[in-house]
């Protein structure tokens, strides 16, 4: 880890406009490899837009540097083995099997040789889809499709930190369609990736899972970074209520002092007390 190639993602004064409307205004932050950064915020606060700009899907002003190099100076071919992106939603153009979808993540040119086969099965096992390889992708449920896509993305950057160079996962709402068991499973996969030296940046809606798993929380509001820091510093009554324009009460689990929120209806049954 030399000073010349810091193992971080560095976003400098990033701004995005879509057809003339500014969506993200001058956001700056750093995320280090080996940590899980989670972007939270209300609908329309610019979370996904920010992630899409960072991954080069949208034009932006400002700078995005990965492992010390500006991404616009890196060719797509060189960037692909360094970072993988899980989109919010993926629709397939043609009927593929699950194995064929996952295989798209394995570097181009490699065919279904034995090791590619093994990699596909390992990836499917990791997202709890063992035995799904021959299934038609389009016949799966939304949550299963989301996990197939994650398996594909994992294949693209399988080793989190080969030769000391960290790889990065960018996940846009990776658990939005999942049941609670698989939400935890996928967050475990993401956390495991960072523990082995990789970097993960995810957009999430679930503040409790964010509190449980994030090393760094970035709170977006109206296209600006409202706050950033560890879950205990950021997930507080004041900040969360301000971010979501709604009075929210944060409690803390006794063990480990992890903050959590219990949503309460603003009208109705709780008024009896």
């Amino acid at each position, binding site marked *: 880890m030399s000073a010349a190639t810091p193992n971080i993602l560095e976003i400098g004064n990033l701004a995005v406009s879509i057809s003339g409307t500014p969506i993200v205004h001058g956001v700056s932050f750093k995320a280090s490899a080996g940590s899980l950064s989670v972007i939270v915020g209300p609908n329309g606060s610019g979370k996904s837009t920010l992630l*899409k700009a960072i*991954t*080069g*899907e949208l034009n932006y002003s400002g700078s995005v540097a990965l492992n010390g190099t500006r991404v616009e100076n890196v060719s*797509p*071919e*060189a*960037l*692909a*083995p360094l*970072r*993988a*992106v899980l*989109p919010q939603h*993926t*629709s*397939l*153009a*043609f*009927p*593929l*099997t*699950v*194995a*064929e*979808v996952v295989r*798209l*993540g394995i570097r*181009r*040119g490699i*065919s*279904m040789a034995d090791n590619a*086969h093994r990699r596909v099965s390992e990836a499917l096992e990791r997202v709890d889809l063992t035995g799904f*390889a*021959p*299934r*038609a992708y*389009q*016949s799966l449920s939304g949550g299963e499709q989301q996990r197939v896509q994650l398996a594909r993305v994992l294949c*693209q950057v399988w080793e989190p930190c080969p030769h000391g160079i960290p790889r990065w996962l960018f996940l846009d709402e990776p658990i939005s369609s999942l049941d609670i068991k698989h939400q935890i499973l996928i967050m475990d996969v993401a956390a495991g990736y960072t523990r082995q030296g990789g970097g993960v940046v995810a957009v999430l809606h679930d503040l409790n899972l964010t509190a449980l798993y994030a090393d760094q929380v970035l709170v977006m509001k109206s296209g600006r970074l409202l706050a950033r820091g560890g879950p205990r510093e950021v997930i507080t009554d004041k900040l969360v209520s301000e971010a979501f324009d709604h009075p929210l009460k944060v409690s803390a689990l006794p063990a480990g002092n992890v903050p959590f929120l219990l949503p309460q209806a603003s009208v109705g049954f709780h008024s009896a007390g």
Partner: protein
Amino acid sequence: MSLRDMSLPSRLLPSRALEQARQGDREPLARLAIAVLVLALLCVMAVSLSSGALSISLTAGFQGLLDGTQADPAALRDRIVMMDVRLPRVVLGALVGASLAVSGAVMQGLFRNPLADPGIVGVSAGAGLGAAAMIVLGGTFLAPVVQLAGIYALPLAAFLGGLATTFALYRIGTRGGMTSVATMLLAGIALGALAGAITGLLVYVADDQQLRDLTFWGLGSLAGATWEKVLTAGPIIAVVLLGVPFLANGLNALFLGEAAAGHLGIRVQRLKTIAIVAVAAATGASVAVSGGIGFVGIVVPHLLRLTIGPDHRYLLPACALLGASMLILADTVSRIMVAPAELPIGILTALAGAPFFLWILLRRKGLVQA
């Protein structure tokens, strides 16, 4: 769609390829299919060479080739029919069939939709307009082009017409990286109608000889295939056929959409540009020598996707082989059905292809929802 639907009956296949297809890996099946298609193409070529108004056995025909000095008039006649009539026709049929099927597959991969076909979305009509303009105006207005390009003037004009149409189609149908299928199909109809109308204007001003040329050419036929036509269209089609396999990985990544393909390391913009030019070139060259032969570009890729899956590394060569076989077969049928006269092959492919197209629509109703 279950995998069972995607594979051939088991007794036709070595069990290992089928077993792996059951595991979700259709690559061995695809390789096997390509081997079968190579054999099929050779058989179809042999049948086509030996059948027709004049029956010539293959061995006799090629024997005539080897000792061409003999003076036996029957052998000489057989040799001329074989070498100057049937062989160029079979070669041209193979080139055009392969080109139509591969153009269809590439375009469908590019637009991410199995209904995109140069014939349906107006690209062939655009190429036809280019060719008609060259036929009618080649003696006057476009004479310098003819002087410069020689026998390549016609395919060049068809290519430019096809290119302009494909490009317009892509610009109209795609906004923000998303292709709207409804917009694309409707734009294709409009562009095709526009090209047809301008072609009509050209027909209106054409003289008798040009009219004859236009009608003959527009029916879609391999009749009148000559070595000159093979030399005209052949190099263009060959370059495209040899080049498109390099697009296979990029087209595969496009299964996931343009953004995801970019994240997989594909230069999407460059891929799209090359694919559009390749489709326009192959369609233009085919239209220039054989007129409008429809539905090969939609039927062949669709049948193959059902069998070996959509992986372009196998789909594209398989399309070339099956497209070539199907067109030669259709041409042979069109020659012997009403022999010694013959049906324009475009009529035959449309007769078989149009119901097939409707069948696809019925089977997968969700396809045309924008």
